[in-house]
């Protein structure tokens, strides 16, 4: 019980930092700082996922959010300006009302969710526990999510990988691999 009480304060610290980063992303004009803050946001949220014991999600978030998308955002920034235009002073009250209503609806739904660790919750009551029981004997992988992804539905994951690989290959064949010299550079040198 002791460490539960303690790690909850670390969660609060992480969430407070997430909130600060979110506001900074909205407020800052310097797009480069915003790109780096999105990377920081994803690092922070992945650390929070680890503390919530969702290591797989944290792994994906770290690889995709902090790794690839930071580089992609930098590449996108190459095509635009360095500073964003100042937002107009006009306030969009209708948008604020919609967001507030959606937030209120989410808070209203919170009491309907099962308590954390509730044995009768849908996640714990149906086939999930069956996988928990059988995985150590059938697969022998410590992480049940990995066992489900890579073994129980291995063909499905394999098919997804093939689809994504084909898509990436098609995009690269259509747009080029990016190693050739660009035409404007060659004109400059000629």
């Amino acid at each position, binding site marked *: 019980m002791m460490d539960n009480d303690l790690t909850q304060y670390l969660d609060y610290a992480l969430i407070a*930092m997430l909130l600060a980063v979110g506001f900074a992303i909205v407020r800052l004009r310097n797009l480069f700082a915003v790109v780096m803050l999105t990377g920081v946001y994803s690092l922070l949220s992945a650390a929070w996922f680890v503390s919530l014991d969702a290591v797989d999600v944290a792994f994906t978030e770290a690889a995709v959010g902090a790794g690839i998308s930071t580089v992609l955002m930098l590449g996108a920034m190459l095509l635009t300006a360095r500073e964003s235009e100042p937002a107009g002073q006009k306030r969009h009250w209708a948008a604020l009302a919609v967001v507030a209503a959606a937030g209120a609806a989410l808070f209203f739904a919170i009491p309907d969710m099962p308590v954390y660790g509730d044995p009768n919750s849908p996640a714990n009551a149906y086939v999930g526990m069956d996988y928990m029981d059988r995985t150590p004997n059938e697969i022998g992988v410590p992480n049940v999510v990995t066992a489900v992804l890579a073994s129980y539905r291995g063909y499905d994951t394999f098919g997804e990988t093939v689809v994504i690989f084909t898509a990436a290959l098609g995009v690269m064949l259509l747009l080029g691999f990016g190693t050739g010299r*660009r035409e404007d550079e060659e004109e400059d040198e000629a």
Partner: protein
Amino acid sequence: MEVVTFLVALGVAAAMAIMLARLFAGPTLYDRVLAMNSFGTKTVLFLLVFSALVGRQDAIDIALLYALINFVATIAILKFFRYRSLEIALAQMSLRKALDGEYEQ
């Protein structure tokens, strides 16, 4: 002992917050690059202390992945600002420079 580990984790979180302040304030680009790199390092440390605190080993894998990603992201950012492009490999860039005779001066 647990309380000591918790205090260490809290200290690392405070260091992360300080780095965040530097990242918000800037003012130059290199302040931000350094702050982000240092923030990533502190995230790795935080995860390691956290895994010691709760006694789970799998967070260490995440910490290793973070260390790698942090390195790649920093290299990508610096490359972006040195060459204004992410398209061409660094090795080819220096090769082209050498062929264009920029190093002869």
